Protein backbone atom coordinates (compact mmCIF):
# COMPACT_ATOMS: atom_id res chain seq x y z
CA UNK A 1 0.00 0.00 0.00
CA UNK A 2 1.46 3.28 -0.98
CA UNK A 3 1.42 6.13 1.48
CA UNK A 4 0.38 9.43 0.02
CA UNK A 5 2.38 11.55 2.39
CA UNK A 6 5.73 10.70 3.88
CA UNK A 7 5.04 9.53 7.39
CA UNK A 8 6.74 11.47 10.16
CA UNK A 9 5.74 9.63 13.31
CA UNK A 10 7.74 11.97 15.54
CA UNK A 11 5.88 14.89 14.09
CA UNK A 12 2.53 13.27 14.83
CA UNK A 13 3.70 12.49 18.34
CA UNK A 14 4.78 16.08 18.83
CA UNK A 15 1.43 17.41 17.62
CA UNK A 16 -0.34 14.99 19.92
CA UNK A 17 1.72 16.00 22.91
CA UNK A 18 2.02 19.74 22.35
CA UNK A 19 -0.89 20.59 20.08
CA UNK A 20 -3.31 21.65 22.78
CA UNK A 21 -0.78 23.83 24.57
CA UNK A 22 0.16 25.52 21.32
CA UNK A 23 -3.49 26.00 20.48
CA UNK A 24 -3.99 27.82 23.78
CA UNK A 25 -1.16 30.17 22.89
CA UNK A 26 -2.69 30.67 19.46
CA UNK A 27 -6.04 31.45 21.07
CA UNK A 28 -4.55 34.10 23.31
CA UNK A 29 -3.07 35.72 20.22
CA UNK A 30 -6.12 35.50 17.98
CA UNK A 31 -8.95 35.61 20.52
CA UNK A 32 -10.89 32.98 18.59
CA UNK A 33 -10.65 29.20 18.88
CA UNK A 34 -11.33 28.56 15.20
CA UNK A 35 -8.72 31.09 14.16
CA UNK A 36 -6.38 29.59 16.72
CA UNK A 37 -6.69 26.15 15.14
CA UNK A 38 -6.18 27.73 11.72
CA UNK A 39 -3.10 29.53 12.98
CA UNK A 40 -1.71 26.41 14.63
CA UNK A 41 -2.20 24.26 11.55
CA UNK A 42 -0.64 26.92 9.35
CA UNK A 43 2.38 27.09 11.62
CA UNK A 44 2.69 23.31 11.82
CA UNK A 45 2.43 23.03 8.04
CA UNK A 46 5.36 25.40 7.78
CA UNK A 47 7.57 23.35 10.05
CA UNK A 48 6.39 19.97 8.73
CA UNK A 49 8.72 19.81 5.70
CA UNK A 50 11.73 20.69 7.84
CA UNK A 51 10.85 18.43 10.73
CA UNK A 52 13.83 16.11 10.39
CA UNK A 53 16.11 19.09 10.98
CA UNK A 54 14.02 20.82 13.61
CA UNK A 55 13.38 17.84 15.85
CA UNK A 56 17.08 17.50 16.57
CA UNK A 57 17.15 20.86 18.30
CA UNK A 58 14.26 22.32 20.23
CA UNK A 59 11.11 21.71 18.20
CA UNK A 60 8.83 23.29 20.78
CA UNK A 61 10.67 26.60 20.68
CA UNK A 62 10.91 26.53 16.91
CA UNK A 63 7.21 25.83 16.42
CA UNK A 64 6.29 28.52 18.92
CA UNK A 65 8.45 30.98 17.03
CA UNK A 66 6.83 30.07 13.72
CA UNK A 67 3.41 30.36 15.36
CA UNK A 68 4.13 33.86 16.58
CA UNK A 69 5.68 34.94 13.30
CA UNK A 70 2.73 33.57 11.36
CA UNK A 71 0.31 35.45 13.55
CA UNK A 72 2.39 38.60 13.15
CA UNK A 73 2.27 38.28 9.38
CA UNK A 74 -1.51 37.79 9.52
CA UNK A 75 -1.85 40.88 11.60
CA UNK A 76 0.47 42.93 9.41
CA UNK A 77 -1.50 42.05 6.35
CA UNK A 78 -4.76 42.78 8.17
CA UNK A 79 -6.26 39.81 6.39
CA UNK A 80 -8.04 38.72 9.49
CA UNK A 81 -9.93 41.93 9.96
CA UNK A 82 -9.59 42.01 13.71
CA UNK A 83 -10.92 45.12 15.36
CA UNK A 84 -9.82 45.98 18.87
CA UNK A 85 -12.72 46.73 21.11
CA UNK A 86 -12.74 50.16 22.70
CA UNK A 87 -15.54 49.33 25.06
CA UNK A 88 -14.91 46.73 27.67
CA UNK A 89 -17.65 44.80 29.31
CA UNK A 90 -18.84 45.95 32.68
CA UNK A 91 -16.82 44.83 35.60
CA UNK A 92 -17.99 41.34 36.44
CA UNK A 93 -20.34 41.08 39.34
CA UNK A 94 -20.69 38.36 41.94
CA UNK A 95 -23.22 36.21 40.13
CA UNK A 96 -23.32 32.72 38.69
CA UNK A 97 -21.72 33.86 35.47
CA UNK A 98 -18.82 35.60 37.12
CA UNK A 99 -16.22 33.24 35.66
CA UNK A 100 -17.45 33.67 32.12
CA UNK A 101 -17.77 37.40 32.58
CA UNK A 102 -14.28 37.90 33.86
CA UNK A 103 -12.90 35.74 31.08
CA UNK A 104 -14.70 37.93 28.58
CA UNK A 105 -13.26 41.01 30.24
CA UNK A 106 -9.73 39.69 29.98
CA UNK A 107 -10.26 38.61 26.38
CA UNK A 108 -11.62 42.04 25.49
CA UNK A 109 -8.77 43.77 27.27
CA UNK A 110 -6.24 41.67 25.37
CA UNK A 111 -7.71 42.81 22.06
CA UNK A 112 -7.09 46.42 23.01
CA UNK A 113 -3.36 45.78 23.31
CA UNK A 114 -1.22 46.54 20.27
CA UNK A 115 -0.05 43.28 18.66
CA UNK A 116 3.49 43.47 19.93
CA UNK A 117 2.34 44.07 23.49
CA UNK A 118 -0.13 41.24 23.24
CA UNK A 119 2.39 38.74 22.01
CA UNK A 120 4.87 39.82 24.68
CA UNK A 121 2.20 39.33 27.35
CA UNK A 122 1.27 35.90 26.04
CA UNK A 123 4.84 34.69 25.83
CA UNK A 124 5.87 36.16 29.19
CA UNK A 125 2.84 35.27 31.28
CA UNK A 126 1.22 32.35 29.50
CA UNK A 127 4.28 30.58 28.13
CA UNK A 128 6.30 31.67 31.19
CA UNK A 129 9.23 32.61 29.02
CA UNK A 130 12.01 34.79 30.30
CA UNK A 131 12.50 38.27 28.90
CA UNK A 132 15.55 37.02 27.02
CA UNK A 133 13.59 34.13 25.51
CA UNK A 134 10.81 36.47 24.41
CA UNK A 135 13.37 38.80 22.89
CA UNK A 136 14.87 35.89 20.97
CA UNK A 137 11.52 34.70 19.64
CA UNK A 138 10.43 38.14 18.53
CA UNK A 139 13.82 39.32 17.35
CA UNK A 140 13.74 42.39 19.59
CA UNK A 141 15.89 43.59 22.46
CA UNK A 142 15.34 42.65 26.09
CA UNK A 143 14.81 46.34 26.78
CA UNK A 144 11.95 46.41 24.30
CA UNK A 145 10.43 43.35 25.94
CA UNK A 146 10.57 45.11 29.30
CA UNK A 147 9.06 48.32 28.01
CA UNK A 148 6.31 46.51 26.06
CA UNK A 149 5.51 44.43 29.13
CA UNK A 150 5.27 47.49 31.33
CA UNK A 151 3.01 49.29 28.88
CA UNK A 152 0.78 46.25 28.49
CA UNK A 153 0.44 45.78 32.23
CA UNK A 154 -0.36 49.46 32.67
CA UNK A 155 -3.06 49.26 30.06
CA UNK A 156 -4.55 46.09 31.49
CA UNK A 157 -4.50 47.68 34.93
CA UNK A 158 -6.37 50.69 33.59
CA UNK A 159 -8.95 48.46 31.91
CA UNK A 160 -9.72 46.84 35.24
CA UNK A 161 -9.78 43.48 33.45
CA UNK A 162 -7.63 41.84 36.08
CA UNK A 163 -9.77 42.96 38.96
CA UNK A 164 -11.64 39.67 39.01
CA UNK A 165 -8.45 37.85 39.79
CA UNK A 166 -6.33 37.68 42.88
CA UNK A 167 -9.11 38.46 45.33
CA UNK A 168 -10.71 35.09 44.66
CA UNK A 169 -7.52 33.13 45.13
Amino acid at each position, binding site marked *: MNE*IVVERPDFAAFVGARGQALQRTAYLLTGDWALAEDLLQTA*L*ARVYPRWSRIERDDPDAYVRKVLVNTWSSWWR*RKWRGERPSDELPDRPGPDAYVDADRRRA*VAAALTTLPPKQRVVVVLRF*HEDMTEAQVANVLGISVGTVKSQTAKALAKLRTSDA*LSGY*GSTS
Partner: protein
Amino acid sequence: MNDETMLREALHDLTFEQPAAPVDRVVGVRRRHVRRRTTQMGGVAAIVAIVAIGAAFIRAPFGNDTEPAHRDVPSWALQWADHRDGSVDQSVLDGAVASWQRFERESRPSTVVWYVGQTAVHDSWVVAVFEAETRTGRHLVAAQAQVGGADPGQSVIHQGEVGDWVIRDAPAPDPTRPPALVGLNLADVTAEGTSNWILVLSTPEFGFHWQAPGSAGGVATMKDGLAVVDTGEVRGQVSVVFDTDVVRNGPVSPIPVAFPGDDNSGAPTLEPATPVEAHGRQVFGRIGGQGTGALSFDSGSSRTRVTVLARCYGGPGRHLETLHLTVDNGPFAANVPCDDQQHEFAGPSLQPQADGHTVFFTGNAFTAFNIAVVKGK
Protein backbone atom coordinates in the same frame (compact mmCIF):
# COMPACT_ATOMS: atom_id res chain seq x y z
CA MET B 1 -1.18 39.19 44.56
CA ASN B 2 0.65 41.39 42.05
CA ASP B 3 -0.36 42.26 38.50
CA GLU B 4 1.87 39.67 36.92
CA THR B 5 0.50 36.86 39.01
CA MET B 6 -3.06 37.97 38.34
CA LEU B 7 -2.32 38.14 34.63
CA ARG B 8 -0.92 34.61 34.66
CA GLU B 9 -4.06 33.42 36.37
CA ALA B 10 -6.24 35.36 33.96
CA LEU B 11 -4.54 33.94 30.87
CA HIS B 12 -4.79 30.45 32.27
CA ASP B 13 -8.46 31.04 33.03
CA LEU B 14 -9.06 32.45 29.57
CA THR B 15 -8.14 29.17 27.93
CA PHE B 16 -10.29 27.16 30.32
CA GLU B 17 -12.93 26.40 27.69
CA GLN B 18 -10.48 25.05 25.17
CA PRO B 19 -12.20 22.77 22.67
CA ALA B 20 -11.03 19.20 22.27
CA ALA B 21 -8.22 18.69 19.81
CA PRO B 22 -9.51 17.92 16.33
CA VAL B 23 -8.87 14.28 15.53
CA ASP B 24 -7.55 15.16 12.10
CA ARG B 25 -5.11 17.87 13.14
CA VAL B 26 -2.11 16.07 11.66
CA VAL B 27 -4.07 15.24 8.51
CA GLY B 28 -5.00 18.91 8.26
CA VAL B 29 -1.37 19.90 8.61
CA ARG B 30 -0.36 17.51 5.85
CA ARG B 31 -3.11 18.84 3.63
CA ARG B 32 -1.91 22.39 4.15
CA HIS B 33 1.63 21.27 3.50
CA VAL B 34 0.55 19.77 0.18
CA ARG B 35 -1.36 22.92 -0.77
CA ARG B 36 1.59 25.06 0.23
CA ARG B 37 3.97 22.99 -1.83
CA THR B 38 1.64 23.18 -4.79
CA THR B 39 1.57 26.94 -4.48
CA GLN B 40 5.30 27.13 -4.11
CA MET B 41 5.93 24.92 -7.06
CA GLY B 42 3.41 26.25 -9.47
CA GLY B 43 1.29 28.97 -8.01
CA VAL B 44 3.96 31.45 -8.56
CA ALA B 45 3.68 32.54 -12.17
CA ALA B 46 6.29 31.93 -14.67
CA ILE B 47 8.89 34.37 -13.64
CA VAL B 48 12.01 33.08 -15.30
CA ALA B 49 15.09 34.85 -14.25
CA ILE B 50 17.88 34.35 -16.68
CA VAL B 51 20.82 35.96 -15.09
CA ALA B 52 23.13 37.81 -17.34
CA ILE B 53 26.84 37.65 -17.44
CA GLY B 54 28.02 41.16 -17.10
CA ALA B 55 28.69 43.61 -14.40
CA ALA B 56 27.45 43.01 -10.92
CA PHE B 57 27.57 44.77 -7.63
CA ILE B 58 28.31 44.06 -4.05
CA ARG B 59 26.26 45.34 -1.21
CA ALA B 60 26.91 44.97 2.44
CA PRO B 61 24.14 42.92 4.01
CA PHE B 62 21.13 44.93 5.08
CA GLY B 63 22.61 48.14 3.71
CA ASN B 64 20.88 50.45 1.30
CA ASP B 65 23.62 51.29 -1.15
CA THR B 66 22.98 50.45 -4.74
CA GLU B 67 25.58 50.15 -7.42
CA PRO B 68 25.90 50.87 -11.08
CA ALA B 69 25.67 47.98 -13.50
CA HIS B 70 29.43 47.68 -13.65
CA ARG B 71 30.70 46.71 -10.28
CA ASP B 72 33.19 44.54 -8.56
CA VAL B 73 31.95 41.29 -7.19
CA PRO B 74 33.68 38.54 -5.27
CA SER B 75 35.31 35.95 -7.48
CA TRP B 76 32.78 33.33 -6.40
CA ALA B 77 29.76 35.38 -7.49
CA LEU B 78 28.07 35.48 -10.85
CA GLN B 79 29.08 38.49 -12.89
CA TRP B 80 25.54 39.60 -13.48
CA ALA B 81 23.87 42.98 -13.49
CA ASP B 82 21.93 44.53 -10.66
CA HIS B 83 18.30 44.66 -11.67
CA ARG B 84 16.85 46.19 -8.53
CA ASP B 85 14.54 48.79 -10.01
CA GLY B 86 13.42 50.69 -6.91
CA SER B 87 9.88 49.30 -6.97
CA VAL B 88 10.62 47.45 -3.74
CA ASP B 89 12.06 49.18 -0.70
CA GLN B 90 15.45 47.80 0.28
CA SER B 91 14.14 46.94 3.74
CA VAL B 92 11.74 44.49 2.06
CA LEU B 93 14.59 42.91 0.12
CA ASP B 94 16.64 42.70 3.29
CA GLY B 95 13.63 40.91 4.73
CA ALA B 96 14.04 38.30 2.00
CA VAL B 97 17.62 37.74 3.11
CA ALA B 98 16.54 37.47 6.74
CA SER B 99 13.74 35.09 5.80
CA TRP B 100 16.18 32.92 3.86
CA GLN B 101 18.45 32.84 6.91
CA ARG B 102 15.58 31.63 9.08
CA PHE B 103 14.31 29.22 6.43
CA GLU B 104 17.67 27.56 5.95
CA ARG B 105 18.82 28.19 9.50
CA GLU B 106 21.79 30.00 8.08
CA SER B 107 24.14 32.43 9.75
CA ARG B 108 24.08 36.11 8.84
CA PRO B 109 25.72 36.50 5.43
CA SER B 110 28.98 38.40 5.26
CA THR B 111 28.29 39.40 1.67
CA VAL B 112 25.11 39.73 -0.36
CA VAL B 113 25.26 40.24 -4.12
CA TRP B 114 21.94 41.41 -5.55
CA TYR B 115 20.63 40.49 -8.98
CA VAL B 116 16.87 41.11 -8.89
CA GLY B 117 14.62 43.16 -6.64
CA GLN B 118 11.33 44.22 -8.15
CA THR B 119 7.60 43.77 -8.34
CA ALA B 120 6.04 41.53 -10.96
CA VAL B 121 2.70 40.21 -12.18
CA HIS B 122 0.76 43.47 -11.99
CA ASP B 123 2.59 44.32 -8.77
CA SER B 124 1.06 41.32 -7.01
CA TRP B 125 4.44 39.68 -6.37
CA VAL B 126 7.80 40.86 -5.09
CA VAL B 127 10.81 38.98 -6.45
CA ALA B 128 14.35 38.94 -5.09
CA VAL B 129 17.36 37.06 -6.44
CA PHE B 130 20.72 37.29 -4.73
CA GLU B 131 23.85 35.39 -3.83
CA ALA B 132 25.04 35.26 -0.25
CA GLU B 133 28.18 34.10 1.48
CA THR B 134 27.92 32.72 4.99
CA ARG B 135 30.12 30.67 7.27
CA THR B 136 28.64 27.50 5.79
CA GLY B 137 29.11 28.37 2.15
CA ARG B 138 27.89 30.40 -0.79
CA HIS B 139 24.34 30.31 -1.98
CA LEU B 140 22.21 31.40 -4.88
CA VAL B 141 18.78 32.34 -3.56
CA ALA B 142 15.51 33.31 -5.18
CA ALA B 143 12.69 34.59 -3.02
CA GLN B 144 9.21 35.70 -3.89
CA ALA B 145 6.36 37.00 -1.80
CA GLN B 146 2.86 38.14 -2.51
CA VAL B 147 2.06 41.78 -1.98
CA GLY B 148 -0.73 41.95 0.55
CA GLY B 149 -0.91 45.36 2.13
CA ALA B 150 -0.09 47.86 -0.61
CA ASP B 151 -2.55 50.21 -2.22
CA PRO B 152 -3.30 49.66 -5.91
CA GLY B 153 -0.89 51.67 -8.01
CA GLN B 154 1.49 52.26 -5.14
CA SER B 155 4.94 52.99 -6.60
CA VAL B 156 7.13 51.42 -3.91
CA ILE B 157 6.42 48.36 -1.78
CA HIS B 158 7.40 48.91 1.83
CA GLN B 159 8.12 46.68 4.79
CA GLY B 160 5.03 44.97 6.17
CA GLU B 161 3.25 44.98 2.83
CA VAL B 162 4.33 41.56 1.64
CA GLY B 163 3.38 38.11 2.83
CA ASP B 164 5.61 35.15 3.57
CA TRP B 165 8.62 34.63 1.37
CA VAL B 166 8.82 31.52 -0.75
CA ILE B 167 12.50 30.64 -0.77
CA ARG B 168 14.58 28.66 -3.23
CA ASP B 169 18.20 27.97 -2.40
CA ALA B 170 21.03 26.36 -4.34
CA PRO B 171 24.79 26.22 -3.97
CA ALA B 172 26.32 29.24 -5.67
CA PRO B 173 27.16 28.20 -9.24
CA ASP B 174 30.65 28.40 -10.60
CA PRO B 175 30.87 31.89 -12.14
CA THR B 176 33.08 30.56 -14.90
CA ARG B 177 30.30 28.17 -15.86
CA PRO B 178 27.12 30.04 -15.00
CA PRO B 179 23.74 28.40 -15.38
CA ALA B 180 22.02 29.04 -18.67
CA LEU B 181 19.23 30.64 -16.73
CA VAL B 182 17.87 31.06 -13.24
CA GLY B 183 14.12 30.82 -13.51
CA LEU B 184 11.10 31.25 -11.32
CA ASN B 185 7.47 30.66 -12.19
CA LEU B 186 4.81 33.06 -10.92
CA ALA B 187 1.04 32.95 -11.34
CA ASP B 188 -1.89 35.24 -10.93
CA VAL B 189 -4.97 33.20 -10.12
CA THR B 190 -8.23 35.13 -10.33
CA ALA B 191 -11.86 34.38 -10.90
CA GLU B 192 -11.17 34.83 -14.60
CA GLY B 193 -8.57 32.09 -14.58
CA THR B 194 -4.87 31.45 -14.25
CA SER B 195 -2.18 33.49 -15.87
CA ASN B 196 1.52 32.81 -15.73
CA TRP B 197 4.64 34.91 -16.03
CA ILE B 198 8.25 34.04 -16.58
CA LEU B 199 11.12 36.22 -15.49
CA VAL B 200 14.30 35.38 -17.35
CA LEU B 201 17.86 36.28 -16.36
CA SER B 202 20.76 35.17 -18.55
CA THR B 203 23.66 36.35 -20.59
CA PRO B 204 22.72 39.83 -21.69
CA GLU B 205 20.77 41.12 -24.58
CA PHE B 206 19.76 37.84 -26.15
CA GLY B 207 16.44 37.48 -27.80
CA PHE B 208 14.52 34.31 -27.11
CA HIS B 209 11.21 32.68 -27.68
CA TRP B 210 9.26 30.75 -25.13
CA GLN B 211 7.01 27.75 -25.56
CA ALA B 212 4.63 25.75 -23.42
CA PRO B 213 2.00 23.06 -23.95
CA GLY B 214 -1.41 24.59 -24.40
CA SER B 215 -0.03 27.93 -25.41
CA ALA B 216 1.17 29.31 -28.71
CA GLY B 217 4.41 30.65 -27.28
CA GLY B 218 5.97 34.01 -28.02
CA VAL B 219 9.06 36.07 -28.58
CA ALA B 220 10.82 38.25 -26.01
CA THR B 221 13.90 40.42 -25.68
CA MET B 222 16.07 40.66 -22.62
CA LYS B 223 17.22 43.94 -21.22
CA ASP B 224 20.72 43.63 -19.84
CA GLY B 225 19.98 39.99 -19.26
CA LEU B 226 16.51 40.26 -17.73
CA ALA B 227 13.06 39.70 -19.21
CA VAL B 228 9.61 39.28 -17.72
CA VAL B 229 7.03 37.66 -19.98
CA ASP B 230 3.32 36.98 -19.60
CA THR B 231 2.78 33.48 -20.95
CA GLY B 232 -0.92 33.24 -20.14
CA GLU B 233 -2.56 29.92 -19.33
CA VAL B 234 -0.30 26.93 -19.87
CA ARG B 235 -0.71 23.14 -19.68
CA GLY B 236 2.89 22.18 -19.00
CA GLN B 237 6.41 23.32 -18.45
CA VAL B 238 7.51 26.60 -20.01
CA SER B 239 10.79 26.50 -21.91
CA VAL B 240 12.83 29.17 -23.64
CA VAL B 241 15.00 28.94 -26.71
CA PHE B 242 17.66 31.61 -27.12
CA ASP B 243 18.47 33.14 -30.45
CA THR B 244 22.06 32.21 -29.81
CA ASP B 245 23.61 29.74 -27.42
CA VAL B 246 24.04 30.97 -23.89
CA VAL B 247 26.22 28.06 -22.95
CA ARG B 248 29.55 28.43 -24.65
CA ASN B 249 29.78 26.02 -27.57
CA GLY B 250 26.49 24.53 -26.48
CA PRO B 251 23.55 23.83 -28.75
CA VAL B 252 20.57 26.13 -29.04
CA SER B 253 17.88 24.03 -27.38
CA PRO B 254 14.84 24.54 -25.15
CA ILE B 255 15.79 25.30 -21.56
CA PRO B 256 13.13 24.68 -18.90
CA VAL B 257 12.26 27.74 -16.87
CA ALA B 258 13.33 26.65 -13.41
CA PHE B 259 15.60 27.45 -10.53
CA PRO B 260 18.92 25.58 -10.85
CA GLY B 261 18.83 22.21 -9.15
CA ASP B 262 15.12 22.36 -8.29
CA ASP B 263 13.15 20.47 -10.91
CA ASN B 264 9.83 21.14 -9.23
CA SER B 265 10.40 24.88 -9.56
CA GLY B 266 9.77 24.39 -13.27
CA ALA B 267 6.12 23.56 -12.67
CA PRO B 268 3.93 26.55 -13.50
CA THR B 269 0.35 26.84 -12.32
CA LEU B 270 -1.47 24.75 -14.87
CA GLU B 271 -4.77 25.39 -16.54
CA PRO B 272 -7.31 23.57 -14.37
CA ALA B 273 -8.32 20.10 -15.49
CA THR B 274 -11.85 19.86 -16.86
CA PRO B 275 -14.24 19.04 -13.99
CA VAL B 276 -15.43 15.46 -13.89
CA GLU B 277 -19.12 14.81 -14.60
CA ALA B 278 -21.13 13.21 -11.80
CA HIS B 279 -24.14 12.54 -14.07
CA GLY B 280 -26.69 13.22 -11.37
CA ARG B 281 -25.09 11.11 -8.68
CA GLN B 282 -24.74 12.49 -5.18
CA VAL B 283 -21.33 14.13 -4.84
CA PHE B 284 -19.65 13.69 -1.44
CA GLY B 285 -16.66 15.83 -2.33
CA ARG B 286 -14.80 17.37 -5.22
CA ILE B 287 -11.35 18.90 -5.66
CA GLY B 288 -9.18 20.30 -8.44
CA GLY B 289 -5.50 21.11 -8.41
CA GLN B 290 -2.14 19.78 -9.48
CA GLY B 291 0.48 17.46 -8.09
CA THR B 292 -0.31 15.68 -4.85
CA GLY B 293 -3.19 16.25 -2.46
CA ALA B 294 -6.06 14.88 -0.44
CA LEU B 295 -9.84 15.18 -0.49
CA SER B 296 -11.79 14.77 2.72
CA PHE B 297 -15.45 13.90 2.54
CA ASP B 298 -18.35 12.67 4.64
CA SER B 299 -20.15 9.65 3.20
CA GLY B 300 -23.24 10.01 5.38
CA SER B 301 -24.67 8.17 8.34
CA SER B 302 -24.89 4.67 6.94
CA ARG B 303 -22.54 2.26 5.25
CA THR B 304 -22.10 3.47 1.70
CA ARG B 305 -20.26 2.34 -1.38
CA VAL B 306 -18.49 5.15 -3.19
CA THR B 307 -17.12 5.71 -6.66
CA VAL B 308 -14.13 7.90 -7.42
CA LEU B 309 -14.29 9.99 -10.60
CA ALA B 310 -10.96 11.32 -11.77
CA ARG B 311 -9.46 13.17 -14.67
CA CYS B 312 -5.92 14.43 -15.12
CA TYR B 313 -3.54 15.62 -17.76
CA GLY B 314 0.08 16.66 -18.05
CA GLY B 315 3.52 15.52 -17.10
CA PRO B 316 6.88 16.93 -18.09
CA GLY B 317 7.78 14.17 -20.53
CA ARG B 318 6.15 12.49 -23.48
CA HIS B 319 5.13 9.38 -21.58
CA LEU B 320 1.71 9.15 -19.97
CA GLU B 321 1.68 10.16 -16.34
CA THR B 322 -0.59 8.51 -13.79
CA LEU B 323 -2.25 9.73 -10.66
CA HIS B 324 -2.24 7.22 -7.81
CA LEU B 325 -5.36 7.08 -5.61
CA THR B 326 -6.04 5.51 -2.23
CA VAL B 327 -8.94 5.83 0.20
CA ASP B 328 -8.35 6.05 3.96
CA ASN B 329 -5.09 4.15 3.50
CA GLY B 330 -7.24 1.06 2.99
CA PRO B 331 -6.81 -1.67 0.39
CA PHE B 332 -8.41 0.34 -2.40
CA ALA B 333 -5.88 1.76 -4.86
CA ALA B 334 -6.09 2.94 -8.43
CA ASN B 335 -3.90 4.53 -11.06
CA VAL B 336 -5.53 7.20 -13.21
CA PRO B 337 -3.98 7.62 -16.66
CA CYS B 338 -3.45 11.33 -17.24
CA ASP B 339 -4.96 11.35 -20.71
CA ASP B 340 -7.42 14.17 -20.05
CA GLN B 341 -10.30 11.69 -20.08
CA GLN B 342 -12.72 10.97 -17.24
CA HIS B 343 -12.14 7.68 -15.43
CA GLU B 344 -14.33 5.93 -12.86
CA PHE B 345 -13.17 3.62 -10.10
CA ALA B 346 -15.53 1.56 -7.96
CA GLY B 347 -14.41 2.43 -4.47
CA PRO B 348 -14.80 0.68 -1.14
CA SER B 349 -17.91 0.42 0.99
CA LEU B 350 -17.33 2.90 3.78
CA GLN B 351 -18.55 2.81 7.35
CA PRO B 352 -19.65 6.16 8.81
CA GLN B 353 -16.80 7.88 10.62
CA ALA B 354 -17.00 10.93 12.83
CA ASP B 355 -14.07 12.55 11.08
CA GLY B 356 -15.08 11.45 7.58
CA HIS B 357 -12.94 9.80 4.95
CA THR B 358 -10.07 10.89 2.77
CA VAL B 359 -9.01 10.16 -0.78
CA PHE B 360 -5.27 10.62 -1.10
CA PHE B 361 -3.72 11.10 -4.50
CA THR B 362 -0.15 11.36 -5.65
CA GLY B 363 0.80 12.88 -8.96
CA ASN B 364 3.63 14.63 -10.68
CA ALA B 365 3.85 18.38 -10.01
CA PHE B 366 3.25 18.92 -13.72
CA THR B 367 -0.11 17.14 -13.75
CA ALA B 368 -3.47 18.81 -13.19
CA PHE B 369 -6.42 16.86 -11.84
CA ASN B 370 -10.09 17.06 -11.00
CA ILE B 371 -11.49 14.44 -8.65
CA ALA B 372 -14.92 13.77 -7.18
CA VAL B 373 -16.26 11.10 -4.84
CA VAL B 374 -19.84 10.11 -5.57
CA LYS B 375 -22.34 7.79 -3.95
CA GLY B 376 -22.88 4.31 -5.32
CA LYS B 377 -21.34 2.31 -8.12
